[in-house]
């Protein structure tokens, strides 16, 4: 890089002293746990990049902005990033609604954005937007072997219909996976975003007596649905999705022991690049990382690789750099990452709750 600060941000070649990135976050409000954890992952990645000299003398600088859960705030911050030329890229928010508002702004303002979470369809439009959280549908098929091993013949599906990701899973992906494995679906039920009590619907499910129940619910709904199923005397398999992670099952305690879910990330995964990340994370924070942290970490690394590739702080150049990196893929916290239309793909692991912590299920030695 050059030591010439200031003018360099828009010139084609070479890197300035610092590259500023706006990180739009949900640090307060109902989804603050996601913001909190991804920030830790981001900070770790930035620290590594700056200490390793990954970008030479150039330092990455993250400007953290809290948009809470407001779409308008998020859009406004993105506009500020577009008009303030000192920002080279945006690390996007985790809520789909915010992301879909930001994407057109980014496209028009020509600034690269890397999202984590934000699983809905309308998020990735055009060339400037990338996502490092793989849609659950893309790796959900790994549950097939588990179903076979547990000799699951019948299943019931319960999903939250107010959420785009969960609806997509509940209506298409999961039934597809289930049927491919020769399992019949006995019931499919829906609840809404603000459903609190699952008594009625779990009773109905138990009446149908399936071997496995698929729960595709919002975070706080999971422990409730699991407990209520168990209390009604259900003793079959319970299979969820990533919303089961991140400590959400803790309150269900013993009731939730044995719940499994295909995940894009598990701290217990044996993949070397994951273990490397987990080790560094544990060292820095003294706790195990969750998927939000891993995604934040990967987002920064994707960006850093793109910048290095571009060897420029220019937005358009960075975008092209990211595109090149994405075409090749790399090993990140979530394991080997590849990209499909700007959207990440991972291998996935089956995670499980053993009653007190999250573990990885390895099939065959059960």
């Amino acid at each position, binding site marked *: 890089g050059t030591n010439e600060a200031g003018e360099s941000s828009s010139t084609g070649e070479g890197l300035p002293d610092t590259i500023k990135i706006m990180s739009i976050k949900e640090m307060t409000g109902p989804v603050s746990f996601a913001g909190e954890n991804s920030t830790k992952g981001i900070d770790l990645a930035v620290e590594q990049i700056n200490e390793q000299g990954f970008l030479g003398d150039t330092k990455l600088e993250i400007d953290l902005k809290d948009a809470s859960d407001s779409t308008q705030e998020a859009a406004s911050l993105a*506009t500020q990033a577009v008009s303030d030329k000192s920002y080279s890229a945006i690390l996007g928010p985790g809520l789909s609604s915010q992301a879909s508002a930001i994407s057109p702004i980014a496209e028009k303002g020509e600034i690269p954005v890397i999202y984590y979470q934000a699983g809905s369809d309308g998020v990735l439009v055009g060339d400037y937007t990338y996502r490092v959280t793989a849609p659950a549908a893309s790796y959900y098929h790994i549950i097939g072997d588990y179903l076979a091993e547990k000799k699951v013949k019948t299943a019931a599906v319960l999903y939250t219909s107010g959420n785009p990701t969960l609806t997509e899973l509940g209506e298409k992906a999961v039934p597809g996976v289930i049927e491919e494995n020769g399992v019949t679906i006995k019931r499919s039920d829906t609840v809404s975003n603000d459903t609190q009590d699952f008594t009625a619907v779990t009773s109905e499910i138990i009446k149908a007596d399936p071997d496995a129940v698929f729960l595709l619910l919002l975070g706080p709904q999971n422990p409730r649905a699991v407990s209520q199923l168990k209390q009604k005397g259900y003793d079959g398999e319970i299979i969820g999705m990533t919303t089961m992670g991140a400590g959400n099952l803790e309150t269900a305690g013993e009731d939730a022991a044995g719940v499994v879910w295909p995940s894009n990330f598990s701290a217990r995964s044996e993949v070397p690049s994951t273990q490397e990340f987990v080790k560094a994370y544990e060292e820095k924070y003294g706790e195990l990382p969750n998927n939000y942290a891993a995604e934040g970490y990967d987002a920064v690394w994707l960006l850093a690789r793109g910048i290095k590739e571009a060897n420029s702080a220019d937005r358009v150049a960075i975008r092209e750099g990211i595109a090149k990196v994405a075409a090749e893929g790399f090993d990140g916290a979530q394991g080997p990452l590849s990209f499909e239309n700007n959207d990440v793909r991972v291998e996935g692991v089956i995670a499980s709750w053993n009653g007190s912590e999250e573990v990885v299920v390895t099939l065959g030695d059960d």
Partner: protein
Amino acid sequence: MIGWYEANIVLIEATFLNFLLALSIQVPLRVGVFSFAGVGSYGLGAYTAAILTIRYDVPAFVAIGAAVVFAAVVGYLFSLIVARLNGLYLAMATIAFVLIISVLATNGGELTGGANGLYGALSDLTTGGVVAVCVVVAFLLALTERGPLRRRIEAVREDPELSMSMGIGVVTVRQLAFTVSGALGACAGAMNALLRTTVSPEEINFHLIVLALTMVIIGGSRSWMGAFIGAVIFTWLPSMLATTGRWQDVVYGLIIILAAIFMPTGLLGLVQSLYQKLRGRSRTAAPAEPPAEEAVEERAMLQALSGESKEGVR
């Protein structure tokens, strides 16, 4: 300045959109109709405009116009259905209306894009267009805040029965309020959908109702200016408070509490009474004195009286 404008364009636009949304609650409130149907119309308008833009690629003003007309008609029909309802019962019915619209949007299949909502509603709507609409709306509403129209609106709100006996068509006024509220709400929703290019069912929820009500009550519920003040405050407050970090939501809540306590007539009312105090003209008028000639007569009598009753007064 230009830089600031560009960087904050979203908030500037949002101020005007929130202004229209607040008005859609305020207009019925001014005639004593406690209706949140305007928030539902916001949803109707947003979806109508987005669908027209995405599917038929119509110009922005056509999409918005169609949304406004559609929601106004729905508002009118709605007013016919809820004609017998009043007060908080009416409020509940309109909340139900809003939530039903949200559920319909979630379950609307391809038409509404389901839980995903719609995206890619790219149009030629500009900030200038939004401001122009708001200026026209504010001007028209300002006309209802003076002279005979203001008196009638006051009458319908405070005492519908009295209004009837004074020849005011209370039912018509109420229906009109619903219609206008529908149009304003839809206008806000449509313009928001086109500016943000997306709309999702999550947007139309109880929180939007609460926001609209808070803007009106804290800004001032009697005048368009109150709605505007409310819109400015509640659009900009969150980003101003972002500097307070972790506790921003707590501070936000405290500000609302203080406003509720100390501004019974909204910020607008507070400003007005301060202004009047400054000008030394309080709301109170001179004490009632009997008419002039009689006063003289009475004074004479009183003098007579006081003379006679000196001993009587201890």
